[in-house]
């Protein structure tokens, strides 16, 4: 008898193992079809100003202008990491305290009432920048300082400051090199932290900074090529320093006439740069980016336009039954993530081990496992529990009457 049972157990085990292997393969295949299968779900912006000291006012103004643009076009503060290396608005030399302008007409106060700086002053270091990109933080770092992107994110990375051939200067004391950046982007790709990445750099010899990049899905544009300098646009004689760089000035000029609903493509942005006005050549690299630039709207990176999925079912907080059913539907529709599979596997392994142990441990285990199975089957938990509670009273009276 025992051997017969064992044989049938073995058959069942083999079948179940085969099923498990098929499951694993299935989930692996799903994981491989990378960016085409994953949906674009959110936009992030990492805006970095790397220079300190009062005479680098224009780099701060560059970053804040882009911050304002990106917020205006829809990206919320939770998905913007703003790194400013020095405080120009409250600098002792600022004639207009708490105000930062990017034009001598002083029309726009960039440092208005809604600026959220995540990394400030001496926190803007190469180490922190690379930690933000790769997501390798200490445990104590708060969520607002982390780039919490996932495989459906489009990230805009804007850097400005002083740079040179294959490097970017941070805080006037250290430098970020092009292979550091390439390595960080490669790690991001490996960890699936972005779907598409746009790197925009406004420094001298900016295009050299991404010469080492090799990861797919990255689009880069720099304000000048190797051997060229990027220049500031104009001097504000009132504030006393140059207030904006040419590249950023013309970028903002492009975006000021746009709003969230415009469909202008990236190619129109890139071709709007006039080398004679910039006094340098704005160079962009598209060999790593699969899509055609004519088809990609600028709001793909600079704004936050989400894809809407319409459902007819009502969304109500208080009825748990519906939400439970909605959960089940959603998990069946989407490409099931590995988590759900992992959850299924242990229960099957448990069943296998149970089948093996059953004839060794006997009746009690069997009873408990049947109770557990019955418990799993119960769907409407609330009603069951309330019936159970109400049932206590008659049970009690009957038992008392029996033992009177």
């Amino acid at each position: 008898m025992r051997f017969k049972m064992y044989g049938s157990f073995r058959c069942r085990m083999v079948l179940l193992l085969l099923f498990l292997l098929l499951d694993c393969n299935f989930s692996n295949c799903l994981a491989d079809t990378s960016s085409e299968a994953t949906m674009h779900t959110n936009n992030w912006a990492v805006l970095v100003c790397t220079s300190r000291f009062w005479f680098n006012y224009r780099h701060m103004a560059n970053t804040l202008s882009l911050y304002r643009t990106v917020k205006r076009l829809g990206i919320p503060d939770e998905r913007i990491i703003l790194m400013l290396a020095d405080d120009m608005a409250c600098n002792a030399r600022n004639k207009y305290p708490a105000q930062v302008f990017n034009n001598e007409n002083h029309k726009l106060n960039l440092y208005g009432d809604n600026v959220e700086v995540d990394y400030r002053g001496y926190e803007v270091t190469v180490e922190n920048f690379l930690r933000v990109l790769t997501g390798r933080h200490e445990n104590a770092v708060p969520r607002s300082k982390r780039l919490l992107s996932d495989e459906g994110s489009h990230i805009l990375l804007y850097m400005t400051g002083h740079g040179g051939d294959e490097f970017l200067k941070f805080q006037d004391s250290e430098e970020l090199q092009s292979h550091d950046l390439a390595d960080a982007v490669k790690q991001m790709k490996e960890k699936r932290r972005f779907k598409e990445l746009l790197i925009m750099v406004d420094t001298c010899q900016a295009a050299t900074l991404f010469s080492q990049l090799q990861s797919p899905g990255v689009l880069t544009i720099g304000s000048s090529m190797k051997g060229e300098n990027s220049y500031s646009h104009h001097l504000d004689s009132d504030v006393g320093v140059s207030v904006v760089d040419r590249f950023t000035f013309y970028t903002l000029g492009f975006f000021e006439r746009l709003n969230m609903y415009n469909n202008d493509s990236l190619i129109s942005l890139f071709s709007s740069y006039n080398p004679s006005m910039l006094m340098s050549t704005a160079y962009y690299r598209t060999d790593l980016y699969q899509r055609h630039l004519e088809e990609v709207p600028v709001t793909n990176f600079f704004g936050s336009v989400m894809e809407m999925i319409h459902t007819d079912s009502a969304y109500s907080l208080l009825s748990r039954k519906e939400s439970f059913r909605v959960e089940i539907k959603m998990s069946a529709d989407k490409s099931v993530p590995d988590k759900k599979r992992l959850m299924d596997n242990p229960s099957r392994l448990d069943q296998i081990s149970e089948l093996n142990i059953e004839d060794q441990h006997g009746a009690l285990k069997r009873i408990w496992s049947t109770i557990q199975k019955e418990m799993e089957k119960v769907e409407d938990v609330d009603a069951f529990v309330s019936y159970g509670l109400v049932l206590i009273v008659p049970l009690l009276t009957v038992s008392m009457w029996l033992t009177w």
Partner: protein
Amino acid sequence: MEPKEQSKEKKEKLWFWNWVIASVIFRLVLIYFPKNLNLASRPEVSTPLTSLRRLAEGYWLKQLSMSPYAGSMYHGSPLLLSLLGPLTVKRIEGQPDHLLCSLVFVIADIVNAMLIRATGQNLQMEYTRSLKLLDHVKLSEKPEIIPSGDIAALVYLWNPFTIVACVGLSTSPIENLAIILSLYGACKRQAPLAAFGWVIATHLSLYPAILIIPMILLLGYGTDTPPRKLFLQRRNVEVGDNPPNDRCCEREEVVHRSEVPHVFSWRPVIHFFCWTSLWSVYVLVLCGISVKQYGGLWELFKRTYGFMLTVQDLSPNIGVLWYFFAEVFDFFRNFFLIVFHGNILFMMLPLAIRLKHRPCFLAFVYIAISSMLKSYPSVGDSALYLGLLGLFVNELADMQFSFFLFCGYVGVSLLSPVMHNLWIWRGTGNANFYFATAMAYACLQIILVVESVSAMLNHDRKLRKPLTELQDGKN
């Protein structure tokens, strides 16, 4: 003579019921005060385990398909959540918030009082019967015997601690109900009821588990009686008394008279254990189904019993653990947890040996000790043992320091909110002020326990005296 006695009895009954109805009306009046007089925010009344606000939060989390234990607000039983949760949400226009829950607690208090009264009547009946068996003519027919059941019920209902616990929206009336139900069931030798009460009491707050020993003694031996030695002495005296002539019929009388259950009867105890296992399986299955989506039974035990035993919440209360565990080093934390909980456990055996002939009183002492040393005590716990103290009014009539204890309790209950206000709201005091009242309260409880036990043992010694005199007289 008879009509006079009947009218006297009627008067007494009327008097009792008048007071009961008056207490109910008083509670209802207090409930209608705005915001329940802010009693629910007092740390003496609502602890992390008994606060209704936390229960409402747990229920709201459950409605959002999240675990009710997320966020460390609610630490109670999921069954209580299903029972009281929907009531916390229902709001009736023009009535105070949580009116339905308050009504539930008032009903629980009334049921508690009725059960205490019934237990007291049972105890008194058995006690007079056993005294008659001892031929203690003097004691058993004393005209001053006070109906202890009525007194205890009224003490319970009119105790300011009980009223405050009921109006202050704490779930301790329901926990007390479970404990009193188990005691009543054990006194009436109803094993299923006793088992049910014990299982629910342990499930709601872990500490009533120690009441298993009085339960077993109650079911095995019966309710409180004088010590067994007295019955043996009585039998010896009687046998010595009787002349050898009418030996046949006298012997039957002797045997009949000393028919007090010395023998421990195992049947009710085995029934009790069977019913306990049945009820605990029932409760565990219900709980398991309630929390199967939120981590299962192990998560439930970690969050409820684990929370109680490891004292994770150190907010001030009327106990002594919070202050101590706020300053103990992490290295010694587990050791001191074991010490504090062990203090309750190693008092159990000596008391059980000494007081095994009085299981109800033993239960009272256990409840008093556990409500002093439990992790989150509140005034609702002391409401229970002060009510049960009333059951032994006749035996503890000569208790020393009773006036001192009474004044002490009044003083502590007045000073404790004052010190809390000085510490938290005005900032002119510090934690030591409040902890001083907590320590005074613990001291008072200790004195109460010690004095009541010694008064009870003195009473037993007094019972022995006439018998020894009788024996000596003969010899």
